[in-house]
Structures are given as C-alpha cells and as structure tokens.
C-alpha cells in the first residue's frame, strides 16, 4: 500500500463528529498525567520537597509518567494519522517529534547511568533539560494549529 492511501485510510477519524475532540481530550489527559507526575519527581531530584522519600516517590511517579506518555502517544498517533499529509509539512510538528526523540534519549541516558540511585550533577542537569524539553514539546504541540 502506498503512503497516501495508507493515510487516507485514517481520514475518517477527522470526519467523525466527536472522535477527534475525544482524542484531543485523551491527549490532554495523557499530557497532564505525564507532566504532573514527572515534575514532582524532577523537583524532588533537584532537591525540593526533601521530606518525601526519593526512591518510593520516584518509582511510583515515573510509573505514572510512563502511563501518561503512553496515553498521549497513542491518542497522538491517531490525531497524526487523521491528517498526516498536512502534519508532515508542519514545522512545529516536526520540531515536536524531534524534541520527543531528544527527551527519550535523555531519559534513557538518565536511567542507564544509575537513574534515581545516582543523583549527581549530571543527573540534575538531565532533570533540568527534561523539564525544558517537555515544556518546549507542549509549546510546539500547541503551535501546530497556528502555523
């Protein structure tokens, strides 16, 4: 199957009366779950809220973050497929995808070098980078509609 036909097979998503707004709702819930829990863990890593136990908070919080990411990614995939041809030429969308890859690589590196058990200067820098990346991803996502 050629690419235009593959994408055309998903165009009905946008033609459906409430499916598109419903996907937008799921996408926002996913973002809220991901960022809400991630910001809590990351602030703890940076030294705030030190009364909270790092290991327990980190494990529970990051599990929620992964659940939020999966929710946002799944809904986002369908939102993308509903108008893929426009989006592949939308610069904020392409920047957003690039930033998602960087955020993923940053998270992978953080956990590979010890994760929550090795909170040193590099880990804190990665945490700050992560916060900035996710904020930029949200800005790019919202900017798609204005480009």
């Amino acid at each position: 199957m050629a690419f235009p036909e593959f994408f055309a097979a998903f165009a009905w998503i946008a033609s459906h009366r409430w499916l598109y707004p419903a996907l937008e709702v799921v996408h926002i819930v996913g973002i809220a779950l991901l960022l809400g829990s991630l910001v809590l863990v990351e602030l703890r890593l940076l030294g705030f809220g030190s009364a909270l136990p790092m290991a327990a908070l980190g494990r529970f919080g990051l599990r929620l973050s992964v659940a939020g990411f999966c929710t946002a990614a799944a809904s986002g995939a369908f939102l993308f497929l509903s108008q893929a041809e426009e989006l592949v030429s939308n610069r904020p969308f392409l920047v957003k995808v690039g930033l998602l890859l960087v955020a993923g690589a940053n998270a992978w590196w953080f956990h590979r070098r010890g994760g929550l058990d090795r909170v040193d200067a590099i880990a804190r820098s990665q945490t700050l980078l992560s916060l900035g990346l996710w904020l930029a991803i949200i800005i790019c996502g919202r900017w798609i509609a204005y480009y």
Partner: protein
Amino acid sequence: MMLMKRRHFLVASAATASAPFAWAHHGWSSFDQKRPIYLEGVARKVAWRNPHAEFDLEVGSDLALPADLTKRQLPSQSAAVDGAWLLSNAVLPTRKDKVWHIELAPLTRLEAWKATEVRNGDRVGILGFTFLEEKGEPVLRGEYLFSGNRTYGLRSSPA
C-alpha cells in the same frame, strides 16, 4: 464632554471584551475582527472535517458586494455577535488572490446549525476575517456562511 468620552470608552471596552471568543482549534486573536471581509465564489477541495471544516474558494474577477448584503437576515446565535454591524461594514479584500482558503467551524457546531455539507463546485458567500492588514496567506476565518439560500453562524451554536 466628559459624558461623551465615557460613553466612547464604554463602547470600546465592550467591543474589546467581546472580541476574543474561544475557538475549538485555535484563537480568533490573530484575525482582524474590526474589518469584516465578504467573499463569494466556487468551493473547491472541501474538507468537511474536524477540527474545523475548510475549503478553497475560487473567487471571480467580478467580485462585488451583493446589493442586498446589508438587508440580509442573520440567525441569532449563543455568542454575542453584532451581525448588523458586520454586514454594514463588510468590504472586499484589497488583495486580488483568485483562491482563498476558508475556515468554518467544528463539525459539532455545523451540525447544531443543521448545515448542509458544502460540496465541491457549490457557489457560496462568506463573511469573515483575515489577518491584520491582509498579511500572510489568503485565509478567511468565516463568521457567517451563505450557502444554498441559508445563512449559518460559525462562531457559536444557534440560540
């Protein structure tokens, strides 16, 4: 004199406050809502979909304001839109693009108006807004759609 000034201020404040209504997809704020533009032509590449229906409008070189425009009856809707003011202040665009991109409303709102789907080749009129000083792409955000002897409000659902 003081009274005059105060009244002007109140009118201006009310106009400013009612301007930035929310849109399901992106805001109205980048569009010049003090300069309603009328376009008429043939719809092409109609995409009747979310987050808003849209199409290309082929505008003829003989584009003119319809003689009856200011007398047209506009349906009432839930948002406070001053339809009479829009009709009496409507102008033609100064730029001479042959094709304009028209943005309508989300599908749920069009369904609330029981709008008949615009088809490729349909002749429609549209009153709406473009960017400040007609900068950028020829994009018109529809405020009212005149299609098949009916008029639809696009900013909100019917009252």
